[in-house]
């Protein structure tokens, strides 16, 4: 370690700005999708499943939404 190396300050975010109101990186968007998926499933089980619609419908919808968020968010 005799040679001096330039040191750079960390960059705050390497993310990008999509339609979400904050800067996000891929992991953030996956995280957001999962959070939405879990929340939606719970609400679905409470309010919609008793009406006869399977929770799998919710899962499919959430996966589509998730893909969209990860790609464009």
């Amino acid at each position, binding site marked *: 370690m005799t040679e001096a190396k*330039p040191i750079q300050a960390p960059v705050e975010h390497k993310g990008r700005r999509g339609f979400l109101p*904050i800067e996000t990186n891929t992991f953030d968007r996956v995280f957001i999708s999962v*959070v939405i998926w*879990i929340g939606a499933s*719970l609400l679905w*089980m409470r309010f919609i499943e008793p009406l006869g619609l399977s929770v799998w419908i919710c899962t499919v919808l959430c996966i589509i939404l998730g893909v969209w968020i990860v790609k464009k968010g």
Partner: protein
Amino acid sequence: MRSNRLGWTLLTPSLVVLGIVGFLPFLFVVWVGFHDWNIFAATRGMIWTGANNYRRLVFDQEFLDALWRTLAYTVTVVVIELSLGFLLAQTLTRQFPGRAFFRTIYVLPLVVAPIAVGATWRLMVIPGFGPIPYFLERWFGIEYRIGTYASHAWATAVLMDVWHWTPFVTLTLLAGLTAIPKEPLEQAMVDGANRWQVFRHLTIPMMMPVILTVVFIRMMDALRVVDEVYMLTNGGPGTATTFIGLHIFRVVFPKTDYGYGSAMSLLVLYFTIVLCWLLFVALSNVGKQKA
């Protein structure tokens, strides 16, 4: 640009330790959460039930009540601690004789173990034993019974938490107050703004990151409170102080309903993470605006 390898090397030990004691158990809990597993059931062992535990949970009034109760409790203590802490931190920024003494005395509650906090407060408030009900009754004629009246138990739990954690909040806010630049404040005073205006339009915005940090930390801990309340009231009277941590404790331990309890904790963890994440995003955005 220097190589990231050293950076990862420095980070790895922490990640390994947290992985072992944090993430592995988490995976196990996720796994158990999809099973029926009660060792006192007629059918033994773990039985896969898919999402049935969660299906039960969203209709479980006892659980939802406990969750709301915990949220209400958290909001109450955070608001009280924050306002009180701000007031005290403000007074501590001034030099006055005896400041060091007060400050030293004031951090005492921080070092008391939660379980001892609960025990001590229990000793303080049990009728026939503790001084608080005795003097309240003797001097003011107030009948103070934490075992009978839900509101008394609730108030005691809040008071206990305020007692235990306001010092931490105060110190953190004080650290923030001493670190913010003084010039804008003085300038504004010179320009004729009154104290309230300065506080409202300069101090608060500058302190926002600290405030959010404190809220974050207190919220995270208040949502999982167990030890203190366990010693103080054990969740009574009725279910008045059965906060979610205690509720889960009861389901997992005396009822030994491991599967359902696991699902329950995951749900609570989910809510906590979402709440904290929102705060975290707010926090880093506030930080960025300033940068």
